[in-house]
């Protein structure tokens, strides 16, 4: 048997390059490329009256300065709407350069192509733009007011969407108890340490446009660029070699700069590069999380929910390139692990004069979970029962799967939970955090501190379609080359896909080399988002490996004159079961798989035409077969698979400074079968850290004029190691019945319930309601004053 690597904490193959400075991030390419520098609007809502670029154009080293008027053909049209939806009645996307009007601070107005970034920024200072500013629409209150972001979008409503199961009105009317609650979450952003970037080169001889792009979805960038530049897809090659974090931001495409770099490369016959700087990441990429929810919940004396009615408003910023996916996810993931026989949700997605809102890791689930879990806690406190007990009484039980929510999920398919064990997960989490003995620890809080404990559960739809593919090829040198189209931004795909292929094929892990996100290697893909890569590409490369194995065994059976059923592949050798002396290495099978006229090595001679053949009655390539020991496999899930988890936290609040300290943070996590525990735990650590960031430190602060006041790492408090505690993790593995490997996604899980669980613990410590996140010491202090509780 080849040692199986699935399930083992295999060390990553990615790391050697990255720790020796040999990574290949987009900005590492093209030191002599023209630099694309954008001039961005300082106004949130304004008419562009005039633009004078003459002084900028005259600067030495400036190739061109473009405004909207200079954009040719398709470049002058609005960027594509990526995900249309019938309820999205007023979608709006931005132009590559602002046309007459700017709608957020940071919108691109002028593009400069210069010898380097320094000169480009000099030129940017010389561009004179006159604006006529209007009242900015900021925040949800602003959106619901009378000023408009788009003059032709009444009430600023992009989408108004409702779904329901059962009969909520009757359920609420008949419920013994009804509570009305309000919950709000504020904006943060992905904030990958590598910003957006694109480097384009045009080879006019081979007529190839090559684009290295910091994207989560290279195949889609390719189609979008080819379409907008009106050139054949086959002339465009897009690859994301190393991407310095994505977190959802980099799934959005094409950015204006993606198109301008590509167009510039062709037009000026020079390499062109755009590298976003940190301020630009804050004001011109994407934000997420701004949502306000109103809840009506009816329940019985046992705490079982009879009816839940949620009406929420989603601030989508100035444009909707990603459609209404974020609020749709809130709507469908809000029920979490609970049975809601009567559930109605309605949301309005509204425009504001701020940066566009698109999914950021967790993708509107943190808000859903915050809303649901806060509601659970309120029911518990209303009835005076334990918070864990109220959850137990509402859980979907392990024998109730598949469990149909009765709603349509973000993949356009029914939301049907496939598997899980929510009661067990909660029990594990409670045991880990020592829930039952907390009273004692509470009483041991040091002077000037108060302690609280919290718990929160979630369900996450992962691994959704439409599909991914994988290609596996055995080289005559013995290496196994694997490729899949979606891109990696730190998830360790190269390692986990190699683990899967090594096991399926029967080869040593070290022999497998994986390439992701390169359209030259694999042309069809969807992308890395929604915790889907391991499930979709993992199962696709597994299928490709199984096909290669079948082919290898058939070819080896001929060579060894054995029955295919008697053959197995062990450590890269195809051998007769029980008689390993009768064996042929896969590398040699790869030679035989490609009948040759011309030899290129000693080994290759065996495949040449006078080397002898088993049959003169058949052609060298049998009908229905292809040369080469390689295959392409696909995985297209019928619907998403649902991962789940429970987090529990113990906090200590300072009675003077209102600081919140996390004493213990426990995670129980179910992502089905685990391919590599080291990587899954790393994903959880990072996710929880982002969750803590969003709960206690990060908030994008707009002033009333729509200026982002903290658009830098000086003012936006992204946590350092000083803020993030140790995270304790336990796993539960309920395999997904939907895919052969039994896996579910893990990428976003960590972040999802963090705001909910921390709010629960702070509320427990303070004794007053926590209805909003993030929560900074200053706000907690004000809440204390408002609640009549004096600082110690």
């Amino acid at each position, binding site marked *: 048997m080849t040692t199986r690597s699935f399930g083992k904490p295999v*060390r*990553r193959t*990615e*790391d*050697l*390059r*990255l*720790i*020796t*400075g*040999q*990574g290949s*991030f987009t*900005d*590492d390419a093209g*030191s002599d490329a023209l630099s694309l520098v954008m001039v961005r609007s300082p106004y949130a809502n304004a008419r562009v009256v005039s633009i004078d670029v003459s002084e900028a154009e*005259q*600067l*030495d*080293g400036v190739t061109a300065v473009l405004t909207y008027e200079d954009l040719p053909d398709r470049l002058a049209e609005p960027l594509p709407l990526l995900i249309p939806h019938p309820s999205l009645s007023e979608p709006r996307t931005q132009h590559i350069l602002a046309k007459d009007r700017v709608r957020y601070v940071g919108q691109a107005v002028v593009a400069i192509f210069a010898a*380097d*970034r*320094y*000169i480009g920024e000099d030129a940017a200072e010389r561009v004179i733009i006159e604006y006529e500013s209007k009242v900015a629409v900021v925040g949800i209150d602003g959106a619901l007011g009378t000023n408009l972001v788009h003059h032709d979008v009444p009430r600023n409503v992009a989408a108004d969407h409702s779904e329901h199961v059962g009969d909520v009105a009757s359920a609420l009317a008949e419920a013994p108890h009804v509570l009305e609650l309000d919950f709000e979450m504020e904006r943060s952003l*992905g904030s*990958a*340490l*590598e910003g957006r970037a694109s480097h384009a080169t045009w080879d006019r001889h081979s007529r190839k446009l090559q684009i290295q792009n910091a994207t989560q979805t290279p195949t889609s960038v390719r189609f979008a660029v080819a379409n907008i530049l009106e050139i054949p897809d086959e002339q465009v090659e897009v690859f994301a070699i*190393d*991407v*310095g*974090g994505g977190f959802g931001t980099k799934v959005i495409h094409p950015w204006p700069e993606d198109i301008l770099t590509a167009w510039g490369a062709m037009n000026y016959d020079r390499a062109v590069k755009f590298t976003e*700087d*940190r301020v630009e990441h804050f004001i011109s990429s994407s934000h997420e999380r701004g949502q306000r929810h109103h809840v009506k919940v009816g329940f019985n004396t046992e705490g079982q929910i009879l009816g839940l009615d949620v009406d929420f408003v989603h601030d989508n910023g100035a444009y909707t390139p990603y459609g209404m996916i974020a609020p749709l996810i809130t709507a469908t993931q809000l029920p979490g692990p609970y049975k809601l026989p009567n559930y109605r949700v309605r949301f309005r997605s509204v425009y504001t004069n701020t940066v566009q809102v698109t999914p950021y890791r967790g993708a509107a689930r943190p808000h859903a979970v915050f809303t649901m879990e806060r509601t659970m806690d309120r029911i518990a406190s209303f009835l005076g029962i334990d918070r864990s007990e109220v959850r137990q009484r509402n859980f979907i039980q392990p024998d109730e799967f598949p469990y149909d929510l009765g709603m349509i999920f973000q993949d356009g398919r029914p939301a049907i939970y496939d598997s899980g064990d929510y009661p067990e997960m909660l029990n594990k989490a409670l045991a880990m955090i020592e829930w039952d003995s907390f009273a004692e620890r509470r009483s041991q809080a040091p002077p000037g501190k108060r302690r609280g404990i919290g718990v929160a559960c979630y369900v996450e739809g992962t691994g959704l379609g439409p599909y991914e593919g994988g290609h596996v090829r055995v080289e005559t040198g013995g290496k196994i080359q694997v490729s899949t189209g979606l891109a990696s*931004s*730190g*998830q*360790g795909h190269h390692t986990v896909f190699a683990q899967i292929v090594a096991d399926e094929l029967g080869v040593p892990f070290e022999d497998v080399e994986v390439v992701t996100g390169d359209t030259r290697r694999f042309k069809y893909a969807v992308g890395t988002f929604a915790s889907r890569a391991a499930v979709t590409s993992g199962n696709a490369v597994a299928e490709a490996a199984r096909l290669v194995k079948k082919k290898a065994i058939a070819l080896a059976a001929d060579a060894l004159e054995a029955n295919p059923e008697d053959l197995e592949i062990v450590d890269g050798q195809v051998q007769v079961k029980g008689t390993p002396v009768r064996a042929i290495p896969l590398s040699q099978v790869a030679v035989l798989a490609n009948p040759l006229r011309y030899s290129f090595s000693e080994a290759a001679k065996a495949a040449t035409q006078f080397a002898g053949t088993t049959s003169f009655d058949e052609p060298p390539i049998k009908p229905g077969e292809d040369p080469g020991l390689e295959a392409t496999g696909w995985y297209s899930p019928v619907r998403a698979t649902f991962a789940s988890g429970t987090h529990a936290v113990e906090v200590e609040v300072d009675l003077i400074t209102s600081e919140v300290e996390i004493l213990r943070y426990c995670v129980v996590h179910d992502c089905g079968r685990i391919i590599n525990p*080291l*990587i899954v*735990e*790393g*994903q959880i*650590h*990072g*996710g*929880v*850290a*982002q969750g803590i960031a969003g709960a206690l430190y990060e908030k994008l602060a707009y002033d009333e004029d729509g200026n982002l006041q903290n658009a*830098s*790492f*000086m003012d936006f408090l*992204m946590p*350092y*190691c*000083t803020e*993030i505690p*140790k*995270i304790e993790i336990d796993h539960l593995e309920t395999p997904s019945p939907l895919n052969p490997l039994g896996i579910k996604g893990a990428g976003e899980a*960590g972040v999802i319930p963090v705001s909910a669980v921390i709010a629960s613990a702070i509320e427990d410590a303070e004794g007053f309601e926590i209805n909003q996140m993030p929560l900074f010491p200053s706000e907690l202090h004000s809440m204390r004053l408002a609640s009549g509780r004096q600082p110690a």
Partner: protein
Amino acid sequence: MNAEVSHEIVLNVNGEVKRFSAPARRLLSDALRGDLGLTGTHVGCEHGVCGCCTVLIDNQPVRSCLTFAIAAQDRKIRTVEGLADADGELHPVQAAFKECHALQCGFCTPGFLMTATALLEQRPNPDEEEITEALAGNLCRCTGYQNIRSAIGHAIELMQSDI
């Protein structure tokens, strides 16, 4: 309008003398990456807060995005490319980062490696607080820092077992 004046700049990087010509305002981070092709040093904020661009100058961790290349002449600069020894054997800090899964996307990693190297050269046996103190100027968006801390602990073990 006139082009900028360029200056001949000589830098000692990873024990090698490198010459190039650049304007006085060229940042060390840009010089290393663009002029010298040492793209292992990354730029995450270009205003001195994230630590991605950390290099060692005369053995002290320095933000290369806040340093002019021309001002780093006559100093000994070390970057991530110079950490492993000539025959490719990893520095214990590098080996520990790999062993402990202390990197995900790897963008922040060179900065952490240089910061940690400087720490362990100055204090071969730091306590938890000193480790936190040393790492507290470097941002990572991927790992949640837990495995980075473990890696520092592991690097200390590796360095001690090396002696």
